[in-house]
């Protein structure tokens, strides 16, 4: 984990109220694993006070990309940043997805901006031995961001693109009609979606890792502010920032 001061290299709008911000951090970019996150101090003014955690969306050489909706004060400040502005970034943080072994087909499943870690997983797969299939759901066509993804099946709540319904319903129908060699699910999205995804994975006996979103203060395990209840084990809670954000879906209670 490093604290680095990173100049913004680009800012793009990629969908309805969806931004992608790139900033230069060679040290973080070179060690980052898929599913890890960065904790960004968005303002020097103290408004907002706390850092904001973002799953890393992509890396491009020395650059790191994050993707976000403008929904509150932190993301509003971030979206107003200009190329050349410097961000105070802590990272890479947290436990990554295990993309290396134990499966043949990577089944990537995301809801909304849960798409964030998927490009990094896509990029890091060993194509000589792995097959990839991606499922992406969102409210509507304007909220689907499929850049950097491959072999994508889409679902929208309003049916404006792809399957009408949730991404987990789409996944269920495709998994029941096709057989993928030795699949493993990599999920990210809102808790309600991840909870349904975990149940489906359990039902079909497919290994499943999920990345959990959670409000946090420090992002490095010292504030103890981001617990998630564990299914079993000595301790009742795990910290999302340190023991996660990626968990085996059977190890935590997603509510």
């Amino acid at each position, binding site marked *: 984990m490093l604290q680095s001061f990173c100049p913004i290299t680009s800012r793009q709008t990629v969908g309805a109220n969806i931004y992608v911000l790139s900033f230069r951090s060679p040290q973080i970019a070179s060690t980052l694993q898929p599913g890890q996150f960065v904790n960004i*101090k968005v303002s020097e003014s103290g408004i907002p006070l706390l850092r904001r955690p973002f799953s890393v969306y992509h890396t491009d050489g020395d650059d790191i990309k994050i993707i976000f909706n403008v929904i509150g004060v932190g993301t509003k400040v971030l979206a107003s940043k200009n190329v050349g502005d410097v961000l105070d970034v*802590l990272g890479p943080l947290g436990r990554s997805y295990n993309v290396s072994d134990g499966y043949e087909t990577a089944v990537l499943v995301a809801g909304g901006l849960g798409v964030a870690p998927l490009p990094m997983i896509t990029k890091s797969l060993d194509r000589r031995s792995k097959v990839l299939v991606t499922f992406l759901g969102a409210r509507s066509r304007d909220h689907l961001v499929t850049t950097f993804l491959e072999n994508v099946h889409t679902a929208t709540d309003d049916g404006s693109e792809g399957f009408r319904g949730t991404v987990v319903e789409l996944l269920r129908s495709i998994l029941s009609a096709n057989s993928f060699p030795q699949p493993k699910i990599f999920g990210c999205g809102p808790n309600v979606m991840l909870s349904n995804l975990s149940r489906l994975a359990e039902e079909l006996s497919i290994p499943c890792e999920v990345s959990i979103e959670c*409000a946090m*203060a420090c992002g*490095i395990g010292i*504030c103890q*502010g981001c*617990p998630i209840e564990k299914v079993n084990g000595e301790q009742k809670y795990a910290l999302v920032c340190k023991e996660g954000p990626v968990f085996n879906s059977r190890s935590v209670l997603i509510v």
Partner: protein
Amino acid sequence: MVDTQTVIGDLILKNPVLVASGTFGYGDDCKDVVNINQLGGIVTKSLSLKPRDGNPPPRIVETASGMLNSIGLANIGVRKFIVEKLPYLRTTQTKIIANIAASTIEEYCIVLSMLDEEEGIDGYEINVSCPNVKEGGLSFGTSCEMTAEITRRLRTLTKKTLIIKLTPNVTHISEFARAVADAGADAVSVINTLVGMAVDIRIRKPKLSTVTGGLSGPAIKPIALAKVYEVAQSVNIPVIGIGGIMTAEDAIEFLLVGASAVQIGTANFIDPAASVNVADGIVRYCEQNKIESVRSIVGTLQASKELSVVRSWQ
């Protein structure tokens, strides 16, 4: 060279900046980004006799210039601390102050006695003021007799520096400070968090699982300063100032109103190196103002009729 040493009980701190309990883990979590040997001291996360899971989520909420927390003293327990954390802390060149939380007087005594047998602990800070646990915690800290009784009992058990961390959630904090000073405390830490609350109006529910929590951060600094000022006027033992310190300037305000040292808390969450930056900034302030020793400015607030004139809002 500015003399940055400060004295708390029998402890000579290399500088007046410590990290507050619960905001720096057990000292080993931040070693990648902070050189803890540059700190006056580390106050550990509160240690209890048995490990504590802490409260259910959500445990934290951001508020205007502050945050509410309801961690519930989640910690690994004193035994595991001694086995797993203390060996690393012994290798550091800073003072190690173990913070102790308990739900009965006996439990405070047992935990302190266990720690007192170990090498590497320089002093104790007693948490009688956690607002987030059902038993013990604040119910001790808001009773003057109980706070004094805990202090008396622990005083008989250790020769090491004994610091009592006081809550601001009382009418007159200086009464508590006097009571623990009379009971043998070497110093007081002022203040712990203030009880606060936030509501999610969409679902009409509290934003914390425990309804109320402890408010910290820059929002509480003016209150903390006033409490430190009040306590410093009323006791002769050192006061450690805590509450919303983000910068060296903030820390110097605390020194001027009577704090002999300060603790950095919430700022560590935003910048793990905040405490070291504060320590460096205090040295720069002294150099710029030709102050030879940090101790010499403690309690030197000029409470005269000629008030400083605010010419503009900076």
